[in-house]
C-alpha cells in the first residue's frame, strides 16, 4: 500500500478531512500513521494539527498505542496548551481512567473556564460510563451557558430519545427550529418525535412538520414518507371528521405520488415501493 501512495495526495486528503471534520477514523489513523512515520520533516508546521487529528482518530478506533505516541509528541511540544491537555484527558478516558480524566479537564477549566470543548468532554465522561441521566444533567448545565450551540441541543434531544423522554426531546427540537427555521432536518426530526409520541393531536402536528420539511427540501425522503404515513393514519382514524378524512387522503396520495416519482427517477426498487404504497393505502382505507 505504502509504495503507491503519494505524499502530497495523502497530505491533502487528510487536510481536507480535517477541515470538513469528516469522521473517517480507520483510514485517518492508517494514512496519518504512514505520513508521520515517513514524512514528519516534510510536513513542517502542519505536523502538529496532523498529530492532533491522528490521535483523535486512533482513540476513536481503539488504537491506543498510536494515540499515545501522537499525544506524547504534542504534549512535549506544547506542554501548557489546553488543547494538548485535552488530548491527554481523552487518552485517559479511552484507558477507562475516568476520574483522572475528570481531574485533567477540571484543571484546564480552572485557567480557562469558558472552554466549551472541555466541558463537552466532561459530559462525554458520563456517556463513557453509560450514565445517560448524568450526561443529560451535565448537558443541561452546559446549555444554560451555551444556548446557541445547536449541536448540543441535538445531542440532548438524542439522549432524551434514548431515555424515551419524547416530550423533552421535542422541546429541544422546538428550540432548534426557532434558532434556524429553514433547516428541513429539524422539522423532520421534530415530526418523527411527535409521531412516535402518538395520539391524534401529535399525529396532526407530525404531518404538518413533515410537510414543512418537504417544502424546505423536496428531496427529503424521510419527510415524504413521514407525511404519507401520518396523513394515512389520520385519514383512517375512526374519530376523524369527513372533512379531515378527505383532506388527509389528499395529502397522503400527494406524498405517495411524490415518493413513487422519486423511485422512478432512481429506478431500482420501484415494484417493492409501489406495492407497499398500495398496501398502506388499503389499510388506511378501512
Amino acid at each position: 500500500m505504502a509504495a503507491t501512495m503519494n505524499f502530497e495526495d495523502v497530505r491533502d486528503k487528510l487536510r481536507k478531512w480535517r477541515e470538513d471534520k469528516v469522521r473517517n477514523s480507520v483510514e485517518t489513523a492508517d494514512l496519518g500513521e504512514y505520513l508521520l512515520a515517513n514524512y514528519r520533516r516534510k510536513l513542517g508546521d502542519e505536523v502538529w494539527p496532523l498529530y492532533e487529528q491522528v490521535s483523535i482518530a486512533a482513540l476513536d478506533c481503539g488504537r491506543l498505542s498510536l494515540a499515545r505516541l501522537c499525544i506524547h509528541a504534542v504534549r512535549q511540544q506544547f506542554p501548557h496548551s489546553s488543547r494538548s491537555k485535552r488530548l491527554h484527558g481523552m487518552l485517559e478516558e479511552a484507558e477507562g481512567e475516568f476520574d483522572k480524566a475528570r481531574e485533567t479537564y477540571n484543571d484546564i477549566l480552572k485557567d480557562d473556564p469558558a472552554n466549551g470543548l472541555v466541558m463537552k468532554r466532561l459530559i462525554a465522561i458520563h456517556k463513557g460510563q453509560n450514565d445517560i441521566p448524568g450526561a443529560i444533567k451535565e448537558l443541561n448545565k452546559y446549555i444554560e451557558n451555551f444556548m446557541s450551540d445547536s449541536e448540543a441541543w441535538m445531542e440532548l434531544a438524542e439522549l432524551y430519545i434514548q431515555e424515551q423522554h419524547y416530550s423533552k426531546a421535542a422541546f429541544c427540537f422546538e428550540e432548534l427550529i426557532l434558532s434556524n427555521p429553514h433547516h428541513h432536518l429539524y422539522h423532520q426530526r421534530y415530526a418523527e418525535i411527535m409521531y412516535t409520541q402518538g395520539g391524534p393531536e401529535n399525529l396532526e402536528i407530525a404531518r404538518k412538520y413533515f410537510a414543512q420539511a418537504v417544502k424546505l427540501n423536496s428531496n427529503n425522503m424521510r419527510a415524504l414518507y413521514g407525511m404519507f404515513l401520518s396523513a394515512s393514519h389520520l385519514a383512517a382514524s375512526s374519530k376523524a371528521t369527513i372533512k379531515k378524512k378527505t383532506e388527509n387522503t389528499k395529502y397522503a396520495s400527494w406524498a405517495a405520488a411524490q415518493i413513487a416519482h422519486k423511485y422512478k427517477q432512481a429506478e431500482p426498487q420501484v415494484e417493492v415501493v409501489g406495492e407497499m404504497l398500495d398496501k398502506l393505502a388499503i389499510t388506511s382505507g378501512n
Partner: protein
Amino acid sequence: MAATISTKAFCKCLLHVSKYPYCAVNGVFVADKKTFKDTREVKIVDAVPLFHQCVGLAPMLEIALVQIDTFCEANGLMIAGYYHANEHIRDNNPSPIALKIADKIQSNFSDAHLYLINNGKVDASCKKDTLMVYQHQDGKWKPLNNANFKLEQEDSTCETCADLLKARAQEDLMDFDCHLDDITNDWQNGALNERLESYS
C-alpha cells in the same frame, strides 16, 4: 433449537455493526417461510440492516418494516428475528427501545428471537458468541443459552465473515438509513449478496 443463521445473515449483521462501531444499530433477520411451515425450524436466510442514525423513533421503522414485509412476501420469507447493538461497548443489556421493537416483531411471529450484539466480543475472528439470544417467555425477554442457535456452516461462516471484514466489505453495506439518505442505496444489498454467494 431456536434458529439456524445463514452465513449471509450473520455476515450482514456483523458488517453492519462494524460499519458503525460508534453508534447503536439494529436490523431484522428473515427466515424461510416454507421450512418453518414444514419442520417448525426457524431457518434464518438473510438479514436486513435497518438504522444507525436514530434507533428510537417510530415512523421510519414502520416504513422499513412494511417494505421488508412486502419483500418477504414476494420471496417466500418472513421476519423472524431482531438484532440490536448498543452504543456503549460494555452495555450488554437489551435497552427498553430494543425490547419494544422486539415485542412488536414477536407479536407478528411468536417464535421470533431477539439477538443482542455482545459488543465486547466483536473482533476479527467473528465467533458465534458475538450474538446473545433472547426468547420471549411469559411476557418477558429471557436470555437463552447460545447452544440454542447455530451458524449454518459453523466455522466456515465465521471465516467468511472475517475475510469480508478484512477486505473492509462493511463500507459497501447499506442499511435503511443509507437508503433514506439516498434511495439509490440498496438496503437489500444486491452487490454484497453476489459477493457472499461466491464464497459458498
